[in-house]
Every structure is written in C-alpha cells, then in structure tokens.
C-alpha cells in the first residue's frame, strides 16, 4: 500500500500483546515488561510490514481500549454478492454452486477484464433471436469465437456455457455421464466374462475403443462416483433410515450403539477403517499418463510458438489449472465478494457492522481508531516565510543528505478531553542510512476536541498567525526553539522535528559494503506516542458526541503506541 510522502502509519501491537502472558485489561495499568519499553520499533523489521496500517484502516475497541487492526479482528460474512452484477447470492447457493456468479458475469481468461455479451448477427440477414451471441472482452478483444463457442441466447450464459465444450461440442450433463459410465461398466463386465469364457487374448484392444482421452470433468465425475461407491460399500447402510437397518452388520450395529453411548465409549468403539481400493480404470477416474500427450504438446509449441501457451496467472485463474494452450481457455465466471462485519478478537464486541443491503454503504456500527487516537501528520517547514499566496511545494522525494531539515509534526486530538502527549524517537533511524532525528519539543498538551460547529465557526476566522513565526528580520529560524511548541489550535498542536538525513554513499574506506536494497533510501522515523488524559469512567457507555455533563468520577487514562512517519526519499548530493 504505497502512499505518497509524507505518510503516517500506526503500529498495532496485537502480536506482541498476544505473546505477553497477561495483556493488561486497562492501558492505565503499569506496562508489564521492562524490555518492551527498552526496545524501539524498527519499521524495517520484516514483521513490521504486518503491523503497520494507515489510520483509516484501524478500528478501536472501546472495551479493551486498544487499537484493532485487520489481524486482531474476527470477520463474519454478512452476505455474498457478485461484484459485477451486484446481485446478492444466498448462502445456500454458495454451498451448492460455489463462490462464483451464476449469471452472465464472466471475466476474460486472457486479461481478467469483465466480458460483454455481443451479437454476431449479420445485419443484412438478421436472425429472429438476434444471435448468435458471444462473450467478448472489450479490453484485449479476445472472444469466445477463438475457442469456438457461440451462444443461442444472450441470457443464461452460465448454463449454456456448461453445456458447450471448446470447439462447439456439447458436454454431457451429470446424468448423461452417469448413464454413460454404467453402460461402459456393463460393456466391460460383459467383455471380461466373454474373455474369461472364451479365453481369447485380444483384451488389450478393449482400451483402444475410447479413442480420445477423457476430459478433466469426465475424470472428476468418474472419480467422485467411484469414491462414492467405495464409501457406500464401507458403510453398508444408513443407520438413520429405518428400513435399511441391518442389525447383523457389526458396523451399523456399533453406529446405533454409539448414538446412545457417551463420547468416551464412542472413542473406544471407533475402529480403523479398512483401506479403500484405488481407482483402477478410466471409468473409475484413473488417468494414466500418456507420453504421447507430452510429445503432442511439444509438437504444438514447435508449430505455434510460445504465444499459444498460457502464463501461470492465466492458468491459475482457470477452472482447470492444468491446461497449457490458449485453445483450451474458458471464460472465468466472476468471483463473488462479501460484506463483512468485524469483531474484537479479545472481547468479541462488534467493531464494525455494515448494513446488510448490498446497495447501502452505511454502517450500523463503526468504531474507528480515527475517533480515539490522535492523528499525526508531518510536513516540511518551508525555509522561507509564507508571505506569498503560492505555497512552496516541497519535494519529499529529494531529501538532501547531511543538511538539517525542519519538519512540522502535527497532532490533532479527536477526544473530548485535553491530552498530554509525550513523543519519543530513537536519535538515529534504524536501517543502513542513519539519519539523526530530534523532536524539539517532545512533551506538550493538545486541547480537547469540541463540537463540529465550533470547528466550522473558527474556520471562518483568519488562521491564527503566530507572531513568532516571522522574526524581526523576517527570519523564521529565530522561532524554532527547543522545548517550545511551534503552533497550536483548538484541538491540535504542532512541534518541530529536526532531521539530518543520512548519507547514501558509505565513506570511501568501506567499498565492500553491499548495495542498498529497495526502499533503503526511504526516510522513515519511528515515533512513540504516549497520551495521558482524564476521562469519564463510563466514557464508553455514553455516545461520543454526547456532551451532557456526567458528574461521574474522572479517571486517569494512558495510551501508547508506535507510529512510523514516512518523511521522504533521500537522494545523494
């Protein structure tokens, strides 16, 4: 999730708190371990990738009083829908038909873009139905004509497509397949009998009458039928159907007994299942590798080149991922999407719950971290005073090594209580390029958030001009003082951050240093944020916007988390 500079990521410590033996229920309790305090967060750690999120993606559990990221929530599916036709698919259909749209939504097997149903009608000779119809890709111009498939109707593409094989031949339905299998089996049995009686030696010829290799679907249905028959022979009868109970069969008898006995008993009685027979012939789903098919494939590549083969991603998107050539492609039915609610993994409280209607984008419940933890943002402090109306755009992609640069760290408080903030950062950033970082004012107060209306009113006023920002001689440097905040507003405070970006090129003596890895030149500063504030004890019970004065007790609360501020990219001199 690449974001343009500057950005701020928030770290969710759910992994660490899970490792800790007893996660503190309230953040106001003293931190459990000393070493956890000692350790600084390293944004370059491989694990950090999975704990850093933009603030918009984080939720907040008011009961645990902790940030909740995608790793520490439980998702529950509310409903399924097709992203292309936006129809809801009931869960019973998901169970029977799988997670793909069964309407007319197909994606191009070549480029994944959604396909449209087009007509091949000859305008000079219009047909009654308007057809024949094809699926065509508007992006790469691939169409089902290339695999020899045309449709009679423009609706019900899924059912039509399931009956047409590539090239236009019809695919037998499941029932026809079963019948065919039975027929084959009988023929084979008869042949076997005949061979047995006649003793003739022409049995190898029986394999040859198949002619073509069975398709993937044929094999699958054969194999599943075979396994079903094997399972049936394993468990002789259904213990729940009253007509077929066979008390003489020990397995069914033990099953019935198990229904009435306790679980411990059941465990003892469970016997080892006898091994099943493996599939032994084509009509049982056995596919014997034929070297001739390999030779044919090689021959085909020789003839039509690499362009006729498929990329691995194209293959994987196919229902049958073992195909090799573009003539075997099938349009891919679009995958369904879900609408999900989220719960806290610790206390199971609902953190977000969208309205179940597909068309609605509203949420019934949404507990955002945005509303509970301060928003940190950074921007460059331009070296010249902002006298001109045209803002000077700072190029965050070109930080100069070794030149001290000032940045403004801006903290805005979403809480309705004033907070005291303590910032901490390692003096040099982790990684190969060590930049020196100093927060000039690491401890400060941020005012409370108030109603939105005050916000709107104050915005009409002219922004507070800080008198110290322009010095007596117009030199802004005079105002950057250690231990003093830069500027503050109603519910925000900004402080100055001094950064000396490190050097890309190592000193000449150490030529053997390995090359910089990707994104090693990105200046990311880990900043530890600790908040102290007093809140109503039952703050989570009352609504956030509700400002009625509860005369309840105030309690001291504390919250702490790591953030990573991506400042920019360092360039050499």
């Amino acid at each position, binding site marked *: 999730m690449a974001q343009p500079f500057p950005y701020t990521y928030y770290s969710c410590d759910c992994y660490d708190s899970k490792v800790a033996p007893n996660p503190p229920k309230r953040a106001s309790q003293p931190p459990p371990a000393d070493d956890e305090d000692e350790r600084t967060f390293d944004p370059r750690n491989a694990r950090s990738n999975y704990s850093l999120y*933009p603030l918009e993606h*984080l939720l907040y559990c008011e009961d645990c009083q902790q940030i909740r990221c995608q790793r520490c929530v439980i998702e529950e599916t509310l409903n399924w829908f097709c992203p292309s036709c936006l129809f809801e698919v009931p869960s019973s259909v998901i169970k029977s038909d799988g997670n793909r749209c069964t309407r007319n939504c197909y994606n191009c097997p070549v*480029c994944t873009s*959604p396909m449209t149903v087009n007509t091949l009608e000859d305008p000079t000779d219009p047909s009654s139905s308007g057809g024949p119809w094809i699926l065509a890709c508007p992006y790469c111009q691939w169409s089902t004509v290339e695999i020899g498939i045309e449709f009679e109707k423009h609706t019900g593409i899924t059912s039509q497509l399931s009956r047409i094989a590539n090239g236009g031949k019809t695919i037998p339905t499941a029932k026809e397949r079963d019948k065919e299998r039975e027929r084959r089996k009988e023929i084979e049995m008869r042949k076997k009998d005949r061979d047995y009686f006649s003793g003739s030696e022409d049995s190898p010829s029986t394999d040859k009458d198949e002619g073509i290799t069975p398709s993937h679907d044929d094999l699958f249905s054969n194999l599943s039928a075979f396994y079903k028959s094997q399972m049936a022979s394993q468990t002789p009868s259904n213990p729940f159907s009253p007509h077929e109970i066979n008390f003489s069969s020990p397995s069914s008898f033990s099953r019935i007994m198990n229904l009435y006995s306790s679980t411990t008993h059941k465990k003892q009685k469970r016997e080892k299942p006898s091994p099943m027979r493996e599939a032994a012939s084509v009509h049982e789903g056995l596919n014997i590798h034929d070297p001739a098919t390999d030779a044919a494939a090689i021959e085909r590549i020789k003839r039509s080149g690499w362009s006729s083969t498929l990329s691995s991603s194209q293959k994987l998107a196919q229902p049958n991922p073992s195909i090799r050539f573009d003539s075997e492609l099938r349009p891919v039915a679009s995958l369904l999407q879900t609408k999900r609610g989220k719960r806290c993994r610790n206390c199971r409280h609902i953190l977000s719950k969208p309205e179940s209607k597909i068309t609605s984008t509203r949420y019934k419940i949404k507990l955002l971290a945005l509303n509970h933890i301060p928003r940190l943002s950074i*921007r460059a402090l331009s070296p010249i005073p902002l006298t001109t109306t045209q803002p000077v755009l700072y190029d965050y992609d070109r930080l100069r090594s070794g030149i001290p640069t000032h940045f403004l760290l801006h903290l805005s408080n979403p809480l309705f209580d004033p907070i005291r903030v303590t910032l901490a950062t390692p003096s040099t950033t982790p990684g190969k390029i060590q930049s020196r970082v100093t927060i000039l004012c690491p401890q400060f107060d941020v005012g409370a958030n108030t109603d939105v209306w005050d916000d709107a009113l104050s915005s009409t006023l002219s922004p507070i001009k800080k008198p110290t920002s322009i010095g007596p001689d117009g030199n802004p440097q005079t105002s950057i003082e250690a231990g003093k905040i830069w500027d503050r*507003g109603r519910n925000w405070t900004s402080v100055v951050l001094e950064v000396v970006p490190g050097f890309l090129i190592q000193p000449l003596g150490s030529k053997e240093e390995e090359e910089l890895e990707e994104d090693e030149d990105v200046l990311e500063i880990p900043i530890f944020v600790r908040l102290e504030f007093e809140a109503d004890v039952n703050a989570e019970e009352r609504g956030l916007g509700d400002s009625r004065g509860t005369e309840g007790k105030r309690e001291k609360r504390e919250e702490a988390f790591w953030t990573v501020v991506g400042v920019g990219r360092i360039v050499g001199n």
Partner: protein
Amino acid sequence: MSRPSARKAAPKGEYIETDSGNKVSRRSAITGTANITLGGRTVIMADVHLRGDLHPTRAVPSSSGKEVTPTSISIGRCTVISTGSVIKPPSRISRGQVHYYPMKIGDNVFVGPHCTISAISIASHVHIGDHTTIHPFVIIKENVKILPNTVIPANMVIPSGSVVGGRPARVVGEVGEGWGVSGGGAGVGGGLGVGGGGEKSWVEGGDLRELVRSIK
C-alpha cells in the same frame, strides 16, 4: 494602448465563480454548456475538457410538448476535476448510428490530473488518481479509490468500497472503514496538514468542501 493597461488594472482570477459556488477555470474548454449541469461548489480546473456537445440525440418524449435540452454531463456538489482531464459521455453504435448516453458524476468526487473519463456513472466519494483512463459505460459505486495510471475497461462495474488499479483494472483491495471520514479533529488546523498527506486539510474520499474552498 489603453485597453491592455485597463485589463491589467482589473486582473481577473483564474476561476469564474457561479452563484451556486461552482468554480470554473477560464482556461478550461467546455463545449455544449447547455447540456452540462454542475451541482454547486464544483471545481473545473484549467485545461479540462467537458464534452457537453455529445448529448443524447434520441427524441425525449416530454409531457409539456416543448423542447427539452438533453443533459449530457451532470456533476454533483463539491466535485473537483483536475487539470488536463477530459470528460466525454460514452457512446455506442447502434444500427449504424452513434448514440451518446448521459453521464453522471456524484458528489465529492476527486478526478486527478490528466484523466480521460467516459463512465456512465460515478457515484459519490470516489477518488480517481492521475492519468487514469475510464472507458465507456463503466459504473463506479460509492467510496472507491482508483489508483493512478489505471485503465478501467469498458462496461466494468466497480462495487463500493474497492481499491482498483492496474491495466486492465481489477479490484486490488478494500478501502478501510475510515475511508473518507475526516473525523478525529481533522478540522482546519491553521491550514496545516491533517488527512492522509501532509499539506492537505482534506481526506481522499471525504468531504471536499475544504479543498474547494482553498482553490482560488
């Protein structure tokens, strides 16, 4: 001699502001203005081309019997169309004739610089990155983020809450629950940075009123 100096004396701003607060750049190219509706507080930046002249040609049955001007582009409130973008209603050839269809863009939509857009419908709170191409008859639902340099193939439907990118576009992720929520005291902190980036006081997919106000 006097005329240039008079022009200098009364310098005109970059934008013409309408009664409903729309800001239209003097350097934008708008054709068929009668067929374009702007919802108010909408910004059309320089070098934007709105093809309002490509309107539906089919006779609209009107009850009053008088001629109704067909709408070709309708844009909602607080929508920003950045420099160099082209908005062109989608067309389809039917029975040998080109037919244009009216397109609709919702509220608080941000269209980045140098996009070409022919979608039939773009809902509200959509953020479109720069150099994006949207082919005809695309439908984009609410709260969608389109990454820069994306090409969205024709007739694609993008469900709400998606992050879309690539050529051709596919859904690559979901926007977080906090998408477009400028809460957390993201007020106008002295014009200082709140929101995703450092120097903007608005969030992608959120209310663009602040952005519109800041454009002068």
